[in-house]
């Protein structure tokens, strides 16, 4: 297994664990955390390909990772604001209980 394949397998494992958490946890904030982990897994992919790729002097991989980190932070902020607003309405963060659009 080459080092590149090891990095890619690590990021695939991180993605899978984040996906499992996002699909199974009941607390809305922990679902958002699972989504953040998936974004981080994609970032690891970019940096791994930048390092082990043919032209590491080109900054494309780093640029993508930097923009991805910025956008993920913005998305986390907006997502948590939405969760707070939903909590204020339904008094719970349990996703299994938020199953009706009435209100």
């Amino acid at each position, binding site marked *: *297994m*080459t080092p590149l*394949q*090891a*990095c*890619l*397998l*690590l990021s*695939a*494992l*991180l*993605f*899978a*664990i*984040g*996906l*499992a*958490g996002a*699909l*199974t946890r*009941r607390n809305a*904030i*922990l679902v958002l*955390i*699972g989504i*953040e*982990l998936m974004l*981080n897994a994609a*970032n*690891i992919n970019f*940096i*791994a390909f*930048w*390092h*082990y*790729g*043919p032209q*590491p*002097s080109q*900054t494309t*991989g*780093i*640029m993508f990772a*930097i*923009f991805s*980190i910025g*956008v*993920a*932070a*913005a*998305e*986390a*902020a*907006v997502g*948590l*604001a*939405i*969760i*707070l607003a939903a909590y204020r309405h339904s008094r719970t*963060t349990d996703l299994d209980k938020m199953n009706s659009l009435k209100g």
Partner: protein
Amino acid sequence: MTLTFLIIAFLIVAGTAAAMGFRNPIHCVLALTVSFAGIAALYLELGAQFVGFTQIMVYVGAVAILAVFAIMMTHRPGDPETRIFSRNAFVGVFTAAAVFAVIGWAILKQPATSAATQPASVSVQQIGASLMHDYVLPLEIVGLLLTAALIGAVVIAMDRKEDNAK
């Protein structure tokens, strides 16, 4: 696969598994912070210094704090102890395992190309130059996006007590 990489990988996977498995949400976020720090260490080992320090500053210093604030504001200690996994947890875990199997098979099936392993080191000046020359349009758009997200988050989470009082 050097020893450093194995230690960092173990740290990342342990932190992530703990983050998705603990009962107390605050413990989950603290384990997530360990995972983020491990990912930053991986970036530093792969030679991307700027991205590694940005990862610490943004994720550990801002996103984790945001998550703990949100948990604090929505967590009532008098809540009944509910299950932490939903009823259809098995479907979610099965899906994630299937995704991992497919991606892992695709990775291992690749012919092991002899990648050029010259040491990659990009200076901050190069990153700045490429941000200002090649990637100036994404930079401006991300600035606009961050402004919109900032204003949007404030508006969504703002207190509407004055509307309720009327």
